[in-house]
């Protein structure tokens, strides 16, 4: 198939026209299909070996059902976040990157870092089809790294679980905490110079998230913690809309 309609050489900002290409939809649904196939294989294998593991068929069913029910709330929370990102990445990319393999935080972070290397900003006039394609590629390589580590580390861990567990536990707590905090704080602070509306959006999301986490703990409501990210993003976007309309957005 020759994509003859894409003659603008990547400088168009009509992201959704290429983000919704049939090939990308096919790949997104392909990942869905792979996960379904994997689940079917696993369930059949588990049924067969159940007596050896000391678990009954009824208990397998109960486990499946309670796993499914417990996932309803978190899944809908992910849906809310994903919808907020549709305008930026288009449906197929959001389904695979935000909904499945990755998460909103890592994927938008990776996309932002990729766009920056091209001198562009996500969402504004510099966010061309070219920038989208590079950002999408970089996000996907990022997700692939997680899977690659899993593929390499799982057999190793299975064999020498105890050896790796003896690595200085501080390495496993201090180093990832430092990496994670620095990455997100850096990307967040990088938004501040863009405009007053960006700063207001960042702060609103932070405050709403803090409120959700505080109330979740205070009132002992776990669902508030799950929905915190979604609520914070939606509330911040409402405030952003008001601030943008009031002329606090970036000077075009």
């Amino acid at each position, binding site marked *: 198939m020759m994509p003859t309609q894409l003659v603008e050489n990547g400088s168009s900002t009509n992201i959704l026209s290429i983000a919704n290409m049939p090939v990308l939809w096919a790949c997104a649904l392909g990942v869905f299909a792979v996960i379904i196939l994997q689940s079917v294989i696993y369930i059949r294998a588990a049924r067969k070996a159940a007596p050896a593991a000391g678990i009954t068929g009824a208990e397998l069913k109960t486990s499946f059902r309670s796993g499914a029910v417990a*996932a309803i709330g978190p899944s809908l929370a992910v849906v809310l976040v994903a919808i907020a990102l549709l305008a930026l990445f288009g449906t197929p990319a959001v389904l695979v990157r935000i909904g499945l393999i990755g998460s909103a935080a890592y994927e938008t972070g990776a996309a932002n870092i990729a766009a920056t290397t091209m001198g562009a900003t996500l969402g504004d006039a510099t966010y061309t089809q070219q920038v989208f394609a590079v950002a999408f590629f970089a996000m996907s390589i990022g997700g692939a790294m997680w899977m690659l580590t899993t593929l390499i580390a799982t057999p190793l861990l299975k064999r020498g679980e105890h050896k790796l567990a003896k690595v200085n536990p501080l390495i496993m707590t*201090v180093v990832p905490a430092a990496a994670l905090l620095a990455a997100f704080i850096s990307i967040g602070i990088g938004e501040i110079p863009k405009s007053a509306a960006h700063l207001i959006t960042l702060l609103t999301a932070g405050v709403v998230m803090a409120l959700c986490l505080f109330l979740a703990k205070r009132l002992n409501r776990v669902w508030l913690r799950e929905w915190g990210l979604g609520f914070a993003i939606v509330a911040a976007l409402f405030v952003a809309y008001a601030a943008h309309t009031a002329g606090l957005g970036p000077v075009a």
Partner: protein
Amino acid sequence: MTTLSPAQATADLAEFDRTTSRWGRLTMIAGLIISVGGPLYLVLFGNLGITSTQLWTAVAAVLGTFFVIWLVEPITYFPILGPAAMYQAFMIGNISNKLLPSVLVAQTSIGARPGTERGNFAAIMAICGAAAVHLLSLLVFVGILGTWLISVVPAGVTDVARIYVLPAVMGAVIVQAIISMKQLRPTLIAFAVVLLVQFVLLPLVPGLAMVSTAISVIGTIIIAWFARKEAQPAA
């Protein structure tokens, strides 16, 4: 339930291990290839005029920022998930906020302890259940409803969403990371390093803008490591 001889039970479990290892790995490799295939097609055949330098610079900047997380996360979740569920979890995603709660609920409801065979089997079934719900809700609410929504919402609204969704996500994620990590020192060090890089280093060397986050990450790791609390339990 028929009683099995110990030898038969061992053979059955070995067979289960072989099946899930082989197919878990194969399906994950397939997922990896398909998920990279989409954007790769766009880059190669999209006629977008992307140079390989642009591509690899972007990938290198992302690698430089997140490499530690990629290495550490699979090792962290292994003891809870068990080997078979690893291949499920890292393809389905949203592990800590969705899969782990599902696993814990399932293990509790049948009284299975994590790390035992019963616990591992409960985990696998719970993740399958969670995956079923998750795929369905993504397909219906994001794939169908979301795509429709984006086509009817006025352009002014989607423009705002596009411009401001990054600060909205980051504002929330920073607060979440700070509160859930509960590590005051690395938090303060991260803020200090980031501010230094953004407002002192970058104005001096503007060319570093594209790797500023990677610099902050590596700088914070090094400083946080040497400034760690020695009073914590010795290794």
